[in-house]
């Protein structure tokens, strides 16, 4: 009886789903040995395939990651490899700056073609740029301040003109290089059709579902519902030409099941239903030590992955007590027990601040070499220095005048809050440790975890005084880093900007630092660059407008080798970055996967 009932129900579910299924797919089961499964990228239903639009929520096809653009379906001119900073041709072959860094000439690959067989031309790049600026999509708004125009020279050659400042110098050549690796190109003919059917209206162009989109990448859409999204290999992909990869990527299907939360994705990885997992998994070593599963990470020992960014606590300079007391800022920062944060919030998947001393740089060798470690060694701190913090505060005259156990400033008790969004567990754990440090040095710090929607409204408001210490991560890696990140830490550009998602969330102003930051993009002499970055590090560590709490990968990369193997690994000498086989040069891994026999 119950069986029959269940059967009937299942049937009715199938019937209700069937039309959608038949419209999209002709295979009912994805052969396990031809499919690479992902987790931790796509949350929620795919909304659109419109590469020129916004809000696509389409992480497998349309996503600019912190380690490079995801070029499964739409391709960029170049790919970035954050392991060595290399810029590798994709749609384009080469690029060349002119003397003044005002123009960059890009030559497209001869072989590069769209899925409909037409060649990728300079006109496509020009059209993509023009319409992006016109409708204000991500590419248009991100690079609009740095790129003035793009012109086609001939069918395969184009020139990107940098925006110039009042004195005729380029605003920021580094950001123009970012465009080369970070912005996907769409087909001009398709864009024309898109603009036409929406009557040129920006909002409807951005919201167009783009089901007829033309792509150039090795994969394309195959099936999507609210439980999964599947891409299928395009066997006519131009990249099998010898001038690019010389072959097709190995998996025929790329599939991503939409999990409700992290634990569900983690369970699926353990069960072998996921091959590549972009999720933070606490105590990941237990997966192989305790559970003895064929799971591995890029490095076999802690920190297991490549940390590219550092979640940071920002001091709110709108609050006089913080703005006027560098000693208070530094005291809190040196009192925090970072080892606990790293052991607890990151379960040691981050190098400690003793191993990689704090600066403006991420822990990669390339960035670490950009400043003089010895020059700032005295300014750096590894944390948990309670006595030092107390001495600093006493010296600055921030003492407990009314004997209530808490220090006062101008006769008022110093009372701060430490804020991060509710449910962001690793950050919440970190804020607890920051609050505990305050307790030990006589500065009252209470934790506050508003819902994400409220948090993001407040911390992006340049005039807010509600949050005193709050968390956000600066940029990870791209050709323009560490400059972009340094600008986020110390740059004046972002001060006072409404709805500020871009940087300097503490509204810290330092004219000297800002002048150096403006100087760096145009500086090409390496020794001079190093001197400038060292000076900035010195300012940052003295002034402490913010303090990083840990290092963190921008993409987590854990793989289950029960079906596929030969994933990138730290000791394989291939220099393919652990970018989930999808982002930037990380996609090279897809061409070298092998089946486990």
């Amino acid at each position, binding site marked *: 009886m*119950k069986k029959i*009932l*269940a*059967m009937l*129900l*299942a*049937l*009715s*579910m*199938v*019937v209700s789903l*069937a039309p959608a*299924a*038949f419209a*999209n*797919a002709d*295979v*009912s*089961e*994805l052969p*396990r040995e031809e499919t690479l*499964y992902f987790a931790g990228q796509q949350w*929620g*239903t795919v*909304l659109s395939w419109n590469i020129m639009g916004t*809000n696509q929520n389409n992480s497998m096809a349309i996503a600019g990651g912190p380690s490079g653009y995801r070029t499964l379906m739409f391709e960029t001119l170049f790919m970035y490899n954050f392991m060595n900073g290399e810029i590798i041709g994709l749609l384009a072959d080469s690029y060349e700056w002119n003397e003044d860094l005002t123009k960059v000439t890009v030559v497209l690959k001869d072989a590069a073609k769209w899925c409909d067989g037409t060649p990728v031309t300079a006109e496509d790049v020009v059209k993509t740029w023009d319409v992006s600026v016109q409708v*204000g999509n991500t590419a248009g*708004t*991100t690079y*609009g*301040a740095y790129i003035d125009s793009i012109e086609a020279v001939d069918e395969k050659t184009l020139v990107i003109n940098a925006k110039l400042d009042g004195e005729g110098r380029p605003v920021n050549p580094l950001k123009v290089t970012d465009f080369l690796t970070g912005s996907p190109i769409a087909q001009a003919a398709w864009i024309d059709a898109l603009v036409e059917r929406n009557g040129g209206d920006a*909002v409807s162009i951005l919201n167009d579902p783009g089901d007829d989109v033309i792509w150039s990448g090795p994969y394309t859409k195959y*099936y999507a*519902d*609210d*439980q999964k999204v*599947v891409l299928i290999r395009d066997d006519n992909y131009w990249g099998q030409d010898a001038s690019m990869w010389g072959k097709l990527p190995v998996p025929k299907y790329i599939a991503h*099941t939409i*999990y*409700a*939360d992290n634990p*569900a994705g983690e*369970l*699926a990885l353990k*069960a072998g*239903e996921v091959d590549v997992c972009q999720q933070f998994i606490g105590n990941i070593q237990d997966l192989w030590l305790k559970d003895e599963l064929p799971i591995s990470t890029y490095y076999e020992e802690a920190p297991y992955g490549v940390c590219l960014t550092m979640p940071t606590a920002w001091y709110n300079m709108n609050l006089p007590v913080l703005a006027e007391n560098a000693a208070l800022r530094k005291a809190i920062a040196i009192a925090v027990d970072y080892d606990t944060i790293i052991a607890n919030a990151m379960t040691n998947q981050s190098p400690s601040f003793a191993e990689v001393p704090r600066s403006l740089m991420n822990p990669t060798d390339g960035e670490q070499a950009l400043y003089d470690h010895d020059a700032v060694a005295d300014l750096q701190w590894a944390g948990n220095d309670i006595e030092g913090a107390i001495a600093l505060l006493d010296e600055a005259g921030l003492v407990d005048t009314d004997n209530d156990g808490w220090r006062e400033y101008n006769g008022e008790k110093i009372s701060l809050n430490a804020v991060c969004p509710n449910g962001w567990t690793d950050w919440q754990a970190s804020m607890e440790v920051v609050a505990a440090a305050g307790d030990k040095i006589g500065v009252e710090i209470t934790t506050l975890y508003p*819902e*994400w*929607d*409220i948090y*993001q*409204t407040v911390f*992006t408001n340049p005039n807010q005084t509600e949050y005193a210490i709050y968390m956000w991560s600066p940029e990870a890696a791209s050709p323009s880093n560490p400059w972009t990140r340094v600008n986020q830490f110390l740059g004046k*550009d*972002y001060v006072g*900007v*409404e*709805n500020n*998602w*871009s940087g300097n969330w503490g509204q810290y102003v330092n004219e000297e630092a800002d002048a150096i930051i403006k100087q760096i993009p145009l500086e090409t002499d390496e020794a001079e660059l190093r001197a400038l970055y060292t000076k900035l590090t010195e300012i940052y560590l003295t002034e402490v407008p913010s303090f990083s709490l840990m290092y963190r990968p921008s993409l987590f990369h854990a793989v289950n080798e029960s079906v596929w193997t030969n994933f990138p690994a730290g000791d394989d000498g291939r220099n393919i970055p652990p970018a989930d086989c999808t982002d930037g040069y990380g996609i090279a891994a897809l061409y070298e996967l092998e089946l486990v026999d």
Partner: protein
Amino acid sequence: MKGYRKYFGKKILWFFITLIAALILNFILPRLMPADPVSAITGKMASGMTDASAVQEIYKRYEAEFGTNKPMLTQFFIFLKNLMHGDLGTSFSQYPRKVSDIISSAIGWTICLQLPAILVGWLLGNLLGALAAYIRKGFDKVLLPVALFMSNVPAFGMAVTLLVLFAVKLKIAPIAGGYAFDMIPNMSWRFVRSVITHYQLPFWSIVLVSIGGQAIGMRSMSIYELNADYVKYARFLGIKDRKIVGYVFRNAMLPQVTGLAMSIGTMIGGALVAEIIFSYPGLGSTMYSAVTAADYPLISATTLIITIMVLVVTFLLDIIYGFIDPRVKAAQFDS
């Protein structure tokens, strides 16, 4: 017959007044939440922008599109007007997806999960309760405490325990989702089987928790009725035991039917935990993500569905009782 008409007229009037009050509450409550969802959408778009006026422009564009710049009252009438046309608006968090589209893709899963679970739980519970009342003795002594214990396991506790036990430890059940991870919905036999296997854990997590409560209620009602005067009188008259028992359980069922109807009415709320823990698609998880994303239109729509379902169920119950329960009947003719 006049009594009936008056009774129904009054009931229908109340139905509409309650419906309107509920509509107002459904509209206002989510909008009292302090977050600004338009700024959330703007934030997604504007990340990486340095130009303040461009950001403001995007913000205004969305504000106009969602109508959040209009006064609350105007917004309410727009909401009502659209509702008349079956238009529940555009979702904020899954913009530009339509709310009706999100709901229609989720509601099937919830009904298919909940309705059978509620029915089976109800049937099994009542059967056990009736048996306990009728047999008493050891059965009752053992069954009642066990049922009580089971019904006191919190829904999430049951779901997590089943998940860990059967999916993680014993590996005899799938871990998540509505169908197998390597399948694409289609009409094949294998797909149907996959749907059924994925169905088991969420289904039983709901059934096991609900059996206990039903059994206890049914047991009490049955004992109450078994001891009632009419039973003694019937026995005295020499009516067959089997027949009496039939009457007894029919009477005892009446309040249980109310309970069943109410749990069907509130099933979306009840599905929340099971759906979240098993990553099962459906309205419960939709509602949860809508709340955390301050997605007013989606929250309003999900709560509205629950509200209307409960309203309709209570209304129908009132009507049916008017016909079948002699006591209610008597009350109408009294007044």
